């Protein structure tokens, strides 16, 4: 009655369970009689009593399709055993009845399945246990009559029968019930639960088809396992339909598993996949429209399905062994070990091994756990990757943001500086056009007034010194690059060279190592004013023939020297309050000390050393 064995079962568990079952059987100390021979006779679906004639001896377990290949209906099995006394009840165990049955002891009915005609009850899923006592039980010969309803296509018949002390027989029954029914029920629940989990996972993430295929495979194989625990053919209308759809679930589940494994390896085999689905579709069509046909072809199709079942995991195992990736090897192990259990089940199917149970399916949860671990591991790895990526992304965004804000900050500072320069230039232009023009015009008006009017010399001088100072302000501001001393100095040099030339005084300038001298604009202006005032003094008072101007950077200081070969003066008697005071105060502002070396008739030598750092304002 069992459909087909399947892969991924854990062999060691199987062994353990068999050992447990054996141990349970051995604990039954009381003698148990196992009936291995019986008489059998066939009858039609509706017979209420066995026919008088036609009984043949049979060995148990019996599959009547070998004897009556086309017999769908009822077969009666009759046993007798001797009972020394009837005071104690007796336990009866029907190891396996395929499919539905009624049981009589000494002509009394002790059990009857709900459905004895199609759609038949499915009593084969678990052993049956009864207790009989007097008066049904007799001293001497007792007769057990089992009326089995079955279909020739689905291995109809009866397993062995045990009679004995209820306690011993019950423990034997319980072991069979546990292994064949209870564990499979758990197993199936487990399959469905796991299938649903991965199905939901896939529904929320359709792109990961791996989970979808795993869910499909698990759910279909779970549906196929329904065969092992279903007490009736519901939801199908007949045994033929039930068995046909069971086969469809099996094939579809296997194909889904194959696709899952292919996707796991990152592969697509379109032609093979198409062929497998075509086969599945053909089986499904057949199940829908000619379920009985599948029952007839069941044994002919079995080798294909079994070959398929072995080919799928074996191909994968071979691939995994070549690739040697840990994930694949674990999955291969999940698939490999149960193949041993499969071998067992296949042999059971062809009745090479006359065992009581197909054992492979009870190993399913462990295989499933292994596969789930692999998938979950893969899922976790993907999540980790995403987290790492997010982390890196955040780091990159942070650094980009930092760079951007630094750039913006720089640009802003630059724009601010440019705006300041622009504002300063505007101011200078205004000074230049307005105030400067008026100043020049005023000087011209005083110097070139109407004939006969003597210009006020002092006023002209004052205006000219204002004009010269304005010149310096404009000059330093135009070269608005902060701290640029060289260009204003060069302009000053040019202007004063011309002025000295016009006055007939030779001027010699030396500007050295000033390129790297950095001053705030205000201090540059002070240096320039110092030089201009010194030159003005030389031009007006020294009567010199030659003036030397020497400005040089010495690393720590800016050294400014102005020397003339003029008349000089007596520094001790020279009245305060003239240009010298102003020069000294300018030097002080620059953090320097004015050194004057002069004397009547030996020229004047002015010197100051402006420290380049820590200039006091």
């Amino acid at each position: 009655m069992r459909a087909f064995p399947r892969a991924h079962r854990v062999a060691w568990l199987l062994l353990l369970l068999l050992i447990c079952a054996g141990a349970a059987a051995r604990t039954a100390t009381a003698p148990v009689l196992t009936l291995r021979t019986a008489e059998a006779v066939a009858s039609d679906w509706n017979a209420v009593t066995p026919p008088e004639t036609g009984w043949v001896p049979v060995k148990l377990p019996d599959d009547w399709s070998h004897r009556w290949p086309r017999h769908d209906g009822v077969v009666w099995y009759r046993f007798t055993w001797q009972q020394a006394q009837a005071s104690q009840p007796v336990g009866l165990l029907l190891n396996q009845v395929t499919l539905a049955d009624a049981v009589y002891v000494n002509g009394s009915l002790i059990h009857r399945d709900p459905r004895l005609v199609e759609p038949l009850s499915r009593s084969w899923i678990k052993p049956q246990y009864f207790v009989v006592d007097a008066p049904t039980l007799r001293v001497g010969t007792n007769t057990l009559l089992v009326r089995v309803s079955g279909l020739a296509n689905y291995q109809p018949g009866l397993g062995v029968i045990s009679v004995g002390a209820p306690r011993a027989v019950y423990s034997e029954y319980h072991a069979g019930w546990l292994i064949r029914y209870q564990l499979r029920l758990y197993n199936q629940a487990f399959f469905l639960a796991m299938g649903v989990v991965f199905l939901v996972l896939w529904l929320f993430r359709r792109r990961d088809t791996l989970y979808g295929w795993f869910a499909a495979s698990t759910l279909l194989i779970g549906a196929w396992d329904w065969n092992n625990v279903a007490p009736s053919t519901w939801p199908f209308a007949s045994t033929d339909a039930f068995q046909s759809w069971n086969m469809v679930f099996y094939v579809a589940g296997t194909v889904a598993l194959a696709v899952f494994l292919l996707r796991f390896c990152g592969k697509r085999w379109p032609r093979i996949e198409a062929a497998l689905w075509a086969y599945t579709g053909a089986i499904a069509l057949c199940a829908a429209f000619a379920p009985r046909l599948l029952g007839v072809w069941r044994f002919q199709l079995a080798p294909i399905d079994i070959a398929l079942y072995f080919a799928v995991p074996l191909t994968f195992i071979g691939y995994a062994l070549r690739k040697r990736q840990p994930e694949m090897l674990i999955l291969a192990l999940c698939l490999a070990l149960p193949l041993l259990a499969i071998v067992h089940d296949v042999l059971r199917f062809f009745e090479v091994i006359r065992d009581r149970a197909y054992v492979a399916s009870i190993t399913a949860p462990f295989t499933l756990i292994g596969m789930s671990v692999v998938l979950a591991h893969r899922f976790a790895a993907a999540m980790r990757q995403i987290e790492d990526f997010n982390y890196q992304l955040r780091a990159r965004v942070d650094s980009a943001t930092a760079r951007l804000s630094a750039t913006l900050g720089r640009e802003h500072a630059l724009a601010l500086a440019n705006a300041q320069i622009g504002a300063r230039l505007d101011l200078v232009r205004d000074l230049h056009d307005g105030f400067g023009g008026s100043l020049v015009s005023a000087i011209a008006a005083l110097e070139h007034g109407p004939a006969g009017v003597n210009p006020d010399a002092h006023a002209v001088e004052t205006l000219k010194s204002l004009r010269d100072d304005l010149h310096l302000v404009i000059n330093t501001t135009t070269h608005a690059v902060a701290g640029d001393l060289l260009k204003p100095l060069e302009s000053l040099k040019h202007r004063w060279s011309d002025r000295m030339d016009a006055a007939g005084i030779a001027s010699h300038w030396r500007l050295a190592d000033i390129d790297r001298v950095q001053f705030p604009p205000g201090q540059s202006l002070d240096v320039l004013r110092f030089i201009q005032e010194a030159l003005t003094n030389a031009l007006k008072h020294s009567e010199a023939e030659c003036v030397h101007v020497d400005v040089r950077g010495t690393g720590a200081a800016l050294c400014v020297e102005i020397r003339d070969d003029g008349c000089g003066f007596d520094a001790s008697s020279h009245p305060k309050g003239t240009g010298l005071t102003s020069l000294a105060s300018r030097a002080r502002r620059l953090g320097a000390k004015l050194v004057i070396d002069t004397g009547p008739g030996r020229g004047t030598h002015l010197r100051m050393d402006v420290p380049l750092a820590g200039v006091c304002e």
Partner: protein
Amino acid sequence: MTAPQVISLRRVLIVEDDVPGQRRLCGLLGTIVGEGLVTAIAGSVADARSAANAGTFDIALVDIGLPDGNGVELIAWLQARHPQMACLVITAWGDGDTVLAALRAGAVGYLLKDRDDAELSHALQNIQRGGAPIDPFVARRILSMLPGALPVAKPEVASDLLSGRERQILGLVAHGHNNRQIAELTGLSRFTIEDYTKRIYRKLAVGSRAAAVFEAHARGLLR
């Protein structure tokens, strides 16, 4: 070396709206030229044009800021209508852009009003002898227009326009040397240096005219 071209200061058109400024220039010219000085004074662009059309002048001294227009435009007009008349631009303070615009419009030189009378007189005498004044700010502006001065800016002057010697002189001026000092440094005479300066100015004017023609061609104004 050709002899510097002498510019006569006998018949002078002074275009200046500031009366003390007018008087000052007249006074200075009178000192330099003495007998025979003829001056005409115009206080606006319109006056200057009618004066130029009415009389004959050797030279025009043109202030930049005039009540009814810009001195640079007047210089360009004078150059087109009265090319025999030399033009000098007068500016109160050294503004490189203004001076340069005037030079490109055809001015042969410039005068800085903020200088003392002695300097101004000196400059006028130089001009009379065929010299041309130059200051660091003007030299720097010209140098900055040459290719290679600024990597981004479009060069306004063709690289082969100025000779090596001319560039050298511009560089020295930019560093604050006056003509006397440059003469000492290079071993050339002051007149030679001033002649170089003049040639540089002329090239600027020619360069700007060539650029204008090129631009006119490009716009399809000339066939």
